[in-house]
């Protein structure tokens, strides 16, 4: 027994070569599913390219005007003014193209995250078993250092936009799943009973009762997802995702504090604008006062 313990202490990797297993697994996937990865990569690239081309083809004033109008509608004229100033600042320091590229990456990753996350969240809310299975996976996805996803992503999809977006999706999906599931489970028990009592089928219950009532929570999930995606697409520049992340990376490599500050500032301004705007949709005009006394 003691001998075995000594051996284990001296060379633990012989007993638990987890890294080796993961490598083997990734290699196995690469060898056997190349076609599938190719297809996924192509469709993600198509989506991201379209979003970016669309955003870049718009005149600058239209993009700025759109966000200002959104701010005026959902928030205050003061925020609208802030949006204008922020975008003019970004234009002024010459980061417009990179900022739009980052915005496009963030939007693409968010779209994919929601397409995956919301249905999984619904499934978690309906099945306790799925929920207990999915929760540790979500914890894992969120706490694993973000850089780690970049390695297999790059191995599967090469360098460029696609691995960046997919690594971002892994990082940004959990809040969408969590808040969708939470929102649905928080729907008042009697509201669900009312749905049943009036003869809802399971589908009617979902679309006419649960999802509409859970919408504020789901929108909070969308907000979280966008913020996670934005922070991750910056890191994803390490695999060549492009956008503002490139400048941040360059500033680190060249120890250029000025460049770092400028690109960082553009990220911060974009983050504030996206955060406030999406958050305002989460609040919504409707609140449930519940059973009053």
């Amino acid at each position, binding site marked *: 027994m003691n001998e075995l313990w000594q051996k284990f202490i001296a060379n633990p990797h012989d007993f638990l070569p987890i890294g080796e297993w993961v490598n083997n697994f990734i290699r196995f996937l690469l060898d056997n599913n190349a076609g599938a990865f190719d297809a996924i990569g192509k469709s993600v690239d198509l989506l991201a390219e379209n979003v970016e081309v669309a955003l870049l083809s718009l005149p600058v004033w239209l993009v700025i005007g759109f966000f200002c109008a959104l701010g005026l509608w959902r928030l205050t004229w003061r925020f609208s003014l802030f949006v204008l100033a922020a975008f003019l600042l970004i234009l002024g320091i010459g980061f417009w193209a990179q900022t739009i590229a980052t915005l496009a990456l963030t939007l693409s990753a968010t779209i994919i995250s929601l397409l995956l996350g919301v249905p999984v969240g619904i499934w978690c809310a309906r099945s306790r078993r799925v929920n207990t299975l999915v929760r540790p996976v979500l914890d894992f996805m969120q706490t694993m250092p973000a850089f780690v996803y970049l390695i297999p992503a790059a191995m599967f999809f090469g360098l460029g936009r696609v691995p960046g977006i997919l690594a971002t999706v892994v990082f940004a999906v959990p809040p969408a799943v969590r808040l969708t599931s939470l929102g649905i489970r928080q729907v008042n028990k009697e*509201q669900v009973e009312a749905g049943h009592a009036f003869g809802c089928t399971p589908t009617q219950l979902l679309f006419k009762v649960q999802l509409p009532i859970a919408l504020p929570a789901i929108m909070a999930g969308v907000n979280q997802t966008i913020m996670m995606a934005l922070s991750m697409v910056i890191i994803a520049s390490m695999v060549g995702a492009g956008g503002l992340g490139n400048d941040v990376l360059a500033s680190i490599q060249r120890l250029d504090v000025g460049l770092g500050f400028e690109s960082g500032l553009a990220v911060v301004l974009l983050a504030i604008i996206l955060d406030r705007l999406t958050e305002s949709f989460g609040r919504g005009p409707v609140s449930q006062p519940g059973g009053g006394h």
Partner: protein
Amino acid sequence: MQSGKIVVENLYKVFGDKPQDAMRLLKLGETKETVFRNTGQVVGVNNVSFSVDEGEIFVLMGLSGSGKSSLIRLINRLMDPTDGRILLDGQDITRLSPAELVSLRRRDMSMVFQSFALMPHRSVLDNAAFGLEIAGVGRKEREKRAMEVLEQVGLATFAKKMPHELSGGMQQRVGLVRALAVNPSLMLMDEAFSALDPLKRSEMQDILLQLQRDHRRTIFFVSHDLEEALRIGTRIAIMEGGRLVQVGTPQEIIENPAEDYVREFFKSVDTSRYLLAKDLLDPHGVGLMVNGNLAGQHDPQHHWVACVSGDHKLLGLVGRDTLGAEGCNPAERCVPVSPITPASALPDVLKRLQGQREPLPVIDHDGRYLGVITASSVLSKLSEHRLQAAAH
């Protein structure tokens, strides 16, 4: 087999993962507490049987934890029973498939909830039309029907408002409209007015009674408020610890509470208000004269004599003094006093007694004389009633 709108036979509901263990003990006659101690299973409903008649308001009473919320949810199968049968119009609904259940709920029954359970994202009109929308009724038709019911409860002008813009009482009126709009033959109301303040509560009870006068439906009403039950209930059932303790009309339950548990309910309620003329009358409160002849021994304390015909129909009252003075032809001297029916409630009786010198005669449906009510007979009956209540 019993007949009725709803017939419940030997219904059980056990919460837990091993309901069959609990059922074995329950069928041996063990109590809810013993079952919980031995199996860890919680008994919600324990061998309950009753029937609800077409068109009546059946009030199910009990404290929290008595199983009344479970029982109402068993009737529309929001919960599945562990054992027993529930017949709705003769059809056993415990055996319905999910699809049959959906169509039954859309067609025959609806529900009103304690917390209103309105949909916050829908306008008042859309909430009112919810049941019809689920059942696949077209927009125009369902909005027309919902609007009609909204008008009945005086909410038509609020149709475009959102629920959170309405007060609690108005929100529950929307809940009521939602349940009525599908025109169900059975309405389930779970503590429907309990979340409202007392004023709003009695206002809602009035609305419900008014609606019931216009269009009789069968209503299964769960409440923990005895005054509410006495006010709206055609019959009242009382539940304790999952068992049904007593079922009867408000009168029967007040007069003959089956157990201490039931009496406990009445402690906080002034049940004397629910005494009727027939409980208050004194058959020998005045003398009796049949066909002009004094019947029986005359009590000198009687100042009045009731004159009745041969078949005991009331003719009127005669003052004792006028009678004594001149021998008699009572039919001529009868003071016509409008009588009262045995089912008149105490407040009505008191109103009639006020400022009236003569005793108040009570006659039944066929006009037959039963006795009289006087101030002193009311007082003695009331004190008797109080003493009885205090004795328990």
